[in-house]
């Protein structure tokens, strides 16, 4: 379900957490979908189950998934998360625009670039 990048220097649990966040935010995993069991994910990725457990705990803490005891983990409703993530994204964009102004990149240039990127995608 997810792929690990063995050249990535971050701890594996961070990678697992991030990959699932992307899957959930992009809608590949929908609200109520069940998450793979810790054991099946650990054996398929050949990693320590405690690592997966830790990643799931982080996902739960960040409200991406919830656990039903005896049944496993499920994807949460992400409406509020989406709003937060969008806010974060715009915050990052603000930073980029600020950086751009140092390089004398005007807002017009940025719109133009976005329009072109939109066309080609």
């Amino acid at each position, binding site marked *: 379900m997810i792929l690990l990048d063995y050249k990535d*220097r971050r701890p*594996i649990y961070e990678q697992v957490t991030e990959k699932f966040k992307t899957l959930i935010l992009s809608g590949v995993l929908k609200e109520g979908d069940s998450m793979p069991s810790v*054991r099946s994910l650990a054996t398929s990725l*050949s*990693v*320590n189950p*405690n690592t997966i457990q830790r990643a799931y705990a982080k996902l739960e803490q960040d409200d991406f998934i919830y656990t039903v005891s005896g049944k496993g983990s499920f994807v949460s409703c992400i409406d509020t998360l989406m709003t937060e993530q969008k806010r974060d994204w715009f915050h990052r964009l603000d930073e980029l625009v600020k950086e751009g102004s140092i390089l004398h990149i005007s807002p017009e240039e940025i719109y133009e670039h976005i329009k072109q990127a939109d066309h080609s995608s």
Partner: protein
Amino acid sequence: MIEIKNVTKNFDDFKAVNNITLHIREKETFGLVGTNGAGKSTLLRMIADIYKPEQGEIIIDGENIYDNPTMKSNFFFISDEQYYPKNANAKYLIQFYCSYYPGFNKKRCLSLLENFDLNPSKKIDGFSKGMKKQLFMILGICAGTKYLLCDETFDGLDPVIRQTVKSLIANDMMERGLTSVISSHNLRELEDICDCIGLLHKGGVLLSDELNSLKLNLHKVQFILKDNLTAEESASGIPDGVSVVYKEHHGRLITMTLEGNEATIHSWFQSMDIVFYEMIPLTLEEIFISKTREVGYNVKEIIF
């Protein structure tokens, strides 16, 4: 839980293990890494009660391991070189281990042997080095013991088998709370499977910590100084809790290995008057190298 308390072992005048204290928690995988001759195998053999510590003691689940046959059925030791009776085949070994380990799962063992394409009726002498390692790894997993001690077990296995073995260990950790201690030089593989890492050097422990906190606490930073400033002028006032492990100059480019909190280091560099900086976490291999280098200059301290 395996508690190693102030354990020392000498071979004549060579201090193989020198006053080591380590704790290995249950249901976790502990990776034992170290320089050649650091005492990894000796330590494992003492945990397995093959060698007797000269000083100190090894306590497993509250009981001293030395000369304690009932405790011995709680762990399986896979040694670097395999020992088996001449002319023995896998079937014979299964029978042999069944009599020692009450929890030995014969059925699982035979099906695993089939999956790994190892003929249980063939003489082990005819197996290749890697096949012997596979066989003993399977026997170890199937022995159903609470603890599994592996001495350089990954080294010498092909990549496909290594992945499979890691999955087997992961499965048994989940299924029955297996605790394993793995010594290896293959640091990349250990990163996948270990919770904790112990780094040995010249019979002593350089560090023993959770892998995650190790990785999150050591960082490599590269930065470029502004033309008119020296390193001392730009990099003054190291914040509390951050220490420099290693530093290297190449003109205006400086590479440092730093120990400390990621956020603290970031804010420190952001406050500096420099052209550019980049920060990356260390791989286990780099942690190994930087930590052993750190002590390379005062080896005496470790020996005496």
